[in-house]
């Protein structure tokens, strides 16, 4: 399965570098596995884009100059925990993979994290939402890189209440992810002096949200919180526009929205939507430069924050391995990654906390009006920067065994 998308792209660059640097015998071999969703609901967030992002990280890091010989493999976990765990096991046992990244979908991420701990390798999750990865189920071999449910709740929930959205109605996808997101956001709303006036559990997946939207409309809440993801989010936003929800003065808050979702809606439908993301391709010159390189290899689409996360974590991982000169002890590599501050062009400076949580700023975005948007990917206005130490869960509150009380 890991041979489905062989990547020998580096070979040429590597061979050229060998002659100039240390003799081949001194090189440390590193194998990175991109384990994501290559065909299902999250394949636009993860998928081939994650492989491209990892490859770009290698181009920038130039492993051969640091005495490393890096290879990338990839596979499709089909959003199934059993499939994800089986591939991880095979990669670690048979194929000498040292580090797995991507890992979109919470249930799969938790499964991969277990296997990684058992085999003492490294797992850096970018795509999954569950904050349990660095909470009750934290592991000395796992780092959670991009976002989690708590950060999304703090970002969008906290900011919306402060901006006057004091009463909320939730449309909640009726499974663990949706319910967790609603719970975490409710806590944030209450803490900030807001109030939840109602909610409705929507079956997963749902194509027609109109009757739920009608209930939200008649509740009179100032904000309609969408505790769902993917096609559910797209359908609910599309139909909210049709029923004149935002024109009627109610705001929509997308609790997990990626730029690929907004692109799929178009600004005409999604305008005014408020959301939280740690990355947007058009933030600064560095993100733009990266995104240009990315879209050349991806039929013109821009990277999502998950893709940016893969780039950033591969870079930091390689920096750590270049120091330790060994991949044998996964926990030691993760410890090294926690000891070194992170710094990359996409997320800026940050740290990896003791519980495995990577800390960086998040941004509150609002989707542009069609008149402001200059192209199909010109989607967001930045409303505010939420500092990393405020947006993520405080270290002591996660109930992680790695954090000494």
């Amino acid at each position, binding site marked *: 399965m890991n041979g489905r998308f062989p990547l020998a792209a580096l070979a040429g660059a590597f061979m050229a570098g060998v002659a100039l640097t240390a003799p081949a015998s001194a090189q440390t071999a590193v194998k990175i596995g991109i384990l994501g969703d290559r065909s299902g609901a999250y394949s636009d967030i993860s998928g081939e884009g994650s492989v491209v992002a990892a490859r770009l990280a290698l181009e920038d890091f130039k492993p051969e100059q640091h005495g490393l010989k890096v290879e990338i493999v990839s596979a499709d976990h089909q959003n199934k925990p059993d499939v994800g765990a089986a591939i991880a096991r095979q990669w670690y046992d048979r194929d000498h993979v040292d580090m797995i990244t991507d890992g979109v979908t919470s249930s799969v991420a938790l499964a991969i994290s277990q296997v990684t701990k058992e085999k003492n390798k490294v797992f850096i999750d970018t795509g999954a939402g569950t904050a349990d990865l660095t909470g009750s189920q934290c592991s000395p071999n796992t780092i959670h890189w991009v976002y989690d449910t708590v950060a999304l709740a703090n970002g969008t929930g906290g900011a919306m209440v402060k901006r006057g959205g004091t009463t909320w109605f939730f449309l909640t996808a009726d499974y663990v992810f949706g319910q967790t997101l609603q719970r975490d956001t409710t806590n944030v709303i209450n803490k900030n002096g807001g109030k939840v006036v109602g909610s409705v559990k929507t*079956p997963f997946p*749902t*194509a027609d949200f109109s009757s739920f939207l009608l209930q939200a409309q008649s509740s009179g809440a100032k904000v309609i919180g969408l505790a769902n993801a993917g096609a559910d989010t797209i359908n609910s936003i599309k139909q909210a526009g049709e029923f004149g929800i935002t024109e009627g003065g109610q705001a929509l808050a997308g609790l997990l929205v990626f730029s690929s979702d907004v*692109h799929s809606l178009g600004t005409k439908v999604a305008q005014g939507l408020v959301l939280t993301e740690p990355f947007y391709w058009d933030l600064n010159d560095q993100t733009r430069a990266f995104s240009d390189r990315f879209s050349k290899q991806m039929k013109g689409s821009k990277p999502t924050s998950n893709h940016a996360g893969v780039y950033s974590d591969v870079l930091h991982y390689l920096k750590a391995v270049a120091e330790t000169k060994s991949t044998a002890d996964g926990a030691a590599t993760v410890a090294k990654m926690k000891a070194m501050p992170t710094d990359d062009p996409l997320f800026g400076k940050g740290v990896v906390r003791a519980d495995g949580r990577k800390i960086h700023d998040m941004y509150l975005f609002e989707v542009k009006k069609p008149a402001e948007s200059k192209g199909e990917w010109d989607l967001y206005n930045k409303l505010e920067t939420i500092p990393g130490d405020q947006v993520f869960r405080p270290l002591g509150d996660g109930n992680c065994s790695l954090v000494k009380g």
Partner: protein
Amino acid sequence: MMTIFGVPTQALFGQLLLGLINGSFYAILSLGLAIIFGLLNIINFAHGALYMMGAFVAWMLLSYFGLGYWWALGLAPLVVGVFGVVLERVLIARLYKLDHLYGLLLTFGLALIIQGLFRNQYGVSGLPYAIPPELSGGQRLPFMFLPNYRAWVVVASLTVCIATWLIIEKTKLGAYLRAATENPTLVQAFGVNVPLFLTLTYGFGVALAGFAGVLAAPIYSVNPNMGADIIIVVFAVVVIGGMGSIIGSVITGFALGLVEGLTKVFYPEASSTVIFVIMVLVLLVKPAGLFGRTA
């Protein structure tokens, strides 16, 4: 304010109307399935994929040729219908003599292939498609805000359903079709080209799916899986109505839309399962479906 089980009657009216609108999609899709099953004896699992194709063709017409919604409403069913005719001639026609299961497996495989191709090309997040300007906005009814587009969906689908029913039940063409289903050898002996009839029937059935896809494009996410999500429900509708019963599929489609709408008010969590519960109950009492003939 009057209430029924704690729900204001006004809200209830709104939900019933929405149920009817969703029922329109079920009706038009199950109608196509019923025609195909009734005349060709093929359980067309590719129906959802062709519905998705209708929506994508609408998007392509707009993005590549600048042709808007009204063009799509006419052209997309045509494109999907022609595609269906090719499928029928090349693949499905070879299976008429075999058991139902072979047709089911073939069309199921086709659905996976079509979805896979679209996913590979366009990704899974879907594509934007806006409501045509003529139909944007809505009416403020005493009990709800009714978007104009939704009203149009009901009108369009009712018109198509009734027209189809009239063609099949009241015209000479329809009579040939029905006769060809009953006894193809005899009808062929009268000089009627039965294989051609079957091909055109399949083409028409899937064109209905394409039409529903265009209707859906402005309000649902246009993505490669949109058909897979709805097709299971539509099959339940066909089974409840009675496999192959044309009028049954239309009435059941609208009725189940209403039931689903009511469930969304009283117990939303069950709204995706209620149709299957009804299916089980109906099959227990009337195994041939509400409008089906027992063999």
